[in-house]
Structures are given as C-alpha cells and as structure tokens.
C-alpha cells in the first residue's frame, strides 16, 4: 500500500471517530501546551531578569561596608562607615583590571520644587558613577569634575522624580530644595526601569558626592570621608572573581585587618546573582521537561489504550482488509500511522495552544514573548515518537491476527 493512501485512510478512520480521536489526543495536547507555555513564560521572565541585571551595569562589583562588632554590638551591613573615599581611589590605582571605582553616599529626604514635594532617594555621586553604571544623561549635562570637587549645589534628576516634580515641563535650570538646601537642576538621567527586586531605579536625585556629604546626608556620619557604597567596574574581558579577590585583599590591607579577622566590608558580585538566577531558571526548565515527559507518557498510554480498543473493535475490518489482500505489514502501518497522526496532531494543537497561552501571559505581564523554535520542534518530534511507541504494540497485535478468525469476529 502506498504511504499517501495509508495516511489518507488513517485520517478517514480518525475522522470516523472524531470525538474519540479528539479526547485521545487531549493528553498530548495538554502536555505539549503546558510545556510550550511554561517554557515561553519562563524564558520571558528570564529575559526580563537579564535585562534588569544588564540595566544595573554589566561587569559590576559592589562593595558595601560590612558588619563590625563594636563593644559586643554587631552592626548590620551598610550601617557602619568603614569604606572611605580613599578606598575608592585606591582600587583602580592598585588593581589594573578595574576600569573605574565610584564612591556613593546614599540618603533620602523630601524634595520640593514649585510647591510640589516628593520623598525620594538622594545619592551623592561623582561622574565616575555614570561611567560605572553605564547610565547616560538624557537631557542637560553631567557634573563637571570641577563641580564634583567643589561640591556645587547642582542636581541630576531620575525620570520618576522629574515626572513627579515637573510633569512634562523642562526641569533644566529650575531650582529644587533637597532637605531645604537649594539645588539647580542641570540634567536628567535616562530611564533605567526597575531592579530585579522591584525597586524603581529612576526614583532618585543625584547630587555631587561632597555636597551630599556636607549638606544633605553627611551630618550623622561618623567619618566625613565615609561612603555608603563603592561601585567597581571591571574592564571588559577581565575576570570578575579575580577583581573581587584583589579588591578584598586590598581593602583588608588598607583596613589593617589581621588574618582570621572578619572583613569589615562586603563584596557583591552582580554576575553571581545573575548566575544564581540562571541556575534556578535551568532547574525550573528541567522540572518542566520532567513534567512534559510525564504528561507525554500519560498521553501515550491513552493513545495505546484507545488503539487497543480500536483493534478489538475493528477486528472484522482487519479480517476484510486481509481477505482482499492486506499484508500484515499493511495492517501494522495502518495502526501505527493512526497512532502517530493522533500524537502529531495533538502535538501541533498543543504547540498552538501553548504559544497562545504564553502570548496572553506575556502581554499581561509586559514580557517579551519568547518561543524557542527548538522547543517547539522537539515537542512535535517527541509527540511523534510517543505516537509510534504507543501505537507499536496495538499495531503488531492487529498485524498478527489470523484472517479467518478476524473475519469471524462480531
């Protein structure tokens, strides 16, 4: 029997029992749809995380003051003031792989402009900060080195702050009061969006580091040159972990820490965070693959079950086909093709449903829709294999029927 004829007669048989065929392939449909949808949604979420990590700045190491024990009282990370401007200056000088190290002073407070007020984060930075974070100025200008050194009363606004205080008006040259200190807005930073932890990076006002320390947040700091954080940008192609180790050694030496004494600072590596994310995403993907495998196997068992019923029901038909000249191989092919067709159609419908569901979720969550073609292809191929595997036993059973007995069947 020709293959095309075999396929068309199998389709006829499936159509004759349309409802049953549909219900049989439902297992495969649901399995494949779930996998495709979850893979796409997971991929979209991962892509979003990657974009967020990228928005924090690639090749970045963050150094924050660590917990110190003072008279038996342990202070939490970031609360002490062990890091200084000099630490930040020393890092790029001593470690050649470092492109730039930007000290930051963080605070918060109420900002007032034109009678509108807004509570936000106030960050004292040098121009190195924008280089480290790969954060460009959308409008206006950065702080000049001279302004940074002198501690001018100038400010750069994040997008959120700009929108809150000035709406659609141009804020450049306008005056704002930060904790009652007047500043002139010289620029607006580009939109960065949310961090992977959900905080708005654009809800911020940048002022020169020295100004911040002297006039805005510095009052309650123990040491006048202390910083809240140092952002270390590693040169392209250099190893983050090497720089991390070098930085640790350098800071321990500068802080005169003895062997066995705890670090009085912490180093956070964004790549590590992203690697952890990547790892958990991979684990999730493997879990999904396992779920997919199980659902496809269950779907396959459903197909095998129905094919066995079908062989029993159609024993007489098989006898008639054999009487008019069907070889055992023809009968076997017929049932194999039926099972495989069921599974393939199920797989295809599952892909369509899965992509549709993923699109709904992606649209709702504002993620990019990521449908991996290899996932789609392997889902379809795997469904086909499941069809062949589950059709094989019923098909062999049909092929081995004795024509005389098959013709005698009710």
């Amino acid at each position, binding site marked *: 029997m020709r293959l095309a004829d075999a396929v068309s007669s199998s389709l006829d048989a499936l159509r004759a029992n349309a409802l049953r065929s549909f219900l049989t392939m439902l297992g495969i449909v649901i399995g494949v749809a779930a996998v495709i949808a979850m893979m796409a949604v997971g991929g979209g979420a991962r892509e979003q995380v990657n974009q967020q990590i990228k928005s924090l700045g690639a090749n970045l190491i963050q150094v924050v003051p660590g917990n110190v024990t003072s008279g038996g009282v342990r202070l939490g990370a970031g609360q002490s003031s062990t890091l200084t401007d000099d630490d930040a200056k020393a890092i790029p000088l001593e470690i050649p792989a470092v492109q730039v190290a930007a000290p930051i002073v963080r605070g918060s407070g109420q900002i007032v402009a034109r009678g509108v007020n807004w509570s936000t984060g106030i960050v004292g930075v040098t121009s190195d900060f924008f280089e480290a974070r790969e954060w460009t100025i959308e409008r206006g200008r950065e702080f000049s080195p001279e302004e940074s050194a002198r501690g001018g009363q100038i400010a750069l606004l994040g997008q959120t702050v700009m929108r809150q205080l000035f709406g659609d008006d141009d804020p450049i040259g306008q005056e704002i009061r930060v904790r009652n200190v007047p500043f002139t807005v010289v620029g607006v930073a580009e939109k960065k969006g949310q961090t992977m932890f959900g905080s708005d990076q654009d809800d911020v006002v940048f002022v020169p580091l020295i100004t911040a320390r002297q006039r805005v947040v510095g009052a309650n700091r123990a040491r006048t040159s202390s910083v809240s954080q140092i952002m270390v940008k590693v040169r392209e192609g250099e190893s983050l972990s090497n720089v991390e180790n070098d930085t640790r050694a350098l800071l321990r030496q500068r802080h005169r820490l003895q062997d066995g004494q705890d670090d009085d600072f912490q180093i956070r590596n964004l790549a590590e965070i992203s690697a952890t994310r990547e790892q958990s995403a991979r684990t999730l993907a493997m879990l999904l693959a396992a779920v997919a495998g199980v659902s496809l196997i269950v779907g396959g068992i459903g197909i095998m079950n129905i094919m066995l019923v079908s062989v029993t029901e159609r024993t007489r038909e098989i006898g008639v086909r054999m009487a008019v*000249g069907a070889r055992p191989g023809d009968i076997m092919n017929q049932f194999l093709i039926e099972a495989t067709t069921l599974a393939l159609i199920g797989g295809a419908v599952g892909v369509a449903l899965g992509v549709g569901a993923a699109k709904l979720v992606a649209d709702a969550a504002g993620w990019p829709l990521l449908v991996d073609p290899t996932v789609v292809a392997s889902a379809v191929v795997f469904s086909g294999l499941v069809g062949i595997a589950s059709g094989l036993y019923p098909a062999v059973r049909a092929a081995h029927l004795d024509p005389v007995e098959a013709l005698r069947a009710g």
Partner: protein
Amino acid sequence: MALIETTGITRTYRMGAETVTALSDVSISIDEGESLAVMGPSGSGKSTFMNVIGCLDRPTSGSYRLAGEEVSSLTKAELAGVRNRRIGFVFQQFNLLSRATALASVELPMLYAGVSLRERRERATRALTRVGLGERMDHRPLELSGGQQQRVAIARALVNDPKVLLADEPTGALDSKTSIEIVALFQELHEQGVTVIIVTHEEDIAAYSRRVVRFLDGRIVSDTRQEPRNAAADLKSPRHAA
C-alpha cells in the same frame, strides 16, 4: 491445467488437549471457468475448505496448487499477495466497511495492489457498473439494500480480475428473490469466463451450479455434475416475478 488442485490436504486444529480434524485428505481438481457449489451441513469442513482454497488458511499437510503455483508453504505476506491478485471473496454478511462508499469499498483491493488513484477510480467505476450499481457509487452500506450491498461486495471481489470468485453463503442474508438475482449475477459472470465457487447449504442455490461437491466430516463424499438451472429465466417465472 487445473486452476485449483489439492492433493491430500488436511487441516487440523488443536483445541486444548484434543486435535480436531476439519479437513481430512481432500483431493480435488477444479478447472478454470468451472461453476461449482460446495455443500455440506455445518461442521462438515466446507468452510475450512473454502478458507484453504482462498489462501486465508494454510493446510496442515498436503499440497495446494493455485494456477500451477504451490501456495501451501507461502508466508502470510505472500498469501496476502495471492489473495489480492488471484482470489475474490464474497461473504454472507457482505463485509463492507461501514464508513466507506461503494466506490471506496471497491477500491480497497487495488489500494493494497498499489494502483494509482486515477486507475482505481476508473476500474472501481467499471466494476460497479458491471454488477449493475453504476448509479449508487457514492452510497454507504447503510444506504443500500442487502442485495445492493452484496453487489458492491461482488464488484470488490472482481476488481483485481481474480482467477476465482469464492462466495461463502452469498445468499444467506438475502430474501429468496434477491438471492436468485445474486445467483443470476454469478451466472452472468461465469458466462464471461470467471470461475465461480459458491459454498452453500441450500439445495436451491446449489441447483444453479454445474458441479456440486458435498462434504461430510471433513471429507468429500460426492462430486457430481448437473445441468444448472437458469437464474435469469427463473426470475421471469411466476414464482419470482415481482
């Protein structure tokens, strides 16, 4: 040369511990173009004989030559090929596929012969016209009367131009008038040169064959020739006239 020649064929079945002999040392020679009725009560072995002759079953021992070819030792797949090319079956219950149209039913044997779609259509149409169903090719079995269904089955049996038409109780499910119509069709085909073997337990039907072979307990007990009745003429007689 004989079309069908069996020499000492025996067919035994194992039923639990017992061995049942369905055919015992059957030797018969049937020439091409014969019209033969196989008779006998149920359990006499006539159905087993037909299954063996039709290559649906293989004899336990003995030789069976069909058109000169020894077929008793062929594989299942080879036997399927022989059935496809050389034998046309007609059954008591018609055995049409319920979802297939008359045309599709008649095309079925050609599907297994690997005939192209166009030729299938053409030959199936011709076969259906030959059995008088040229107008009902798109009907499914449920839309056809018993006699019409049997005509579709006969067209299916004829479509690959077999050497022999094997009919197992072809009139068993039909009323007497339709039975004679079907027998008339067999006689017509016989006149066109088809070898027709009809298995029946009805003397009325056997009367239309030229040769009558009777089975009992797995053996041939008589093999006689007679002047057959003419079914077409009987249809015009008062008894069968509508």
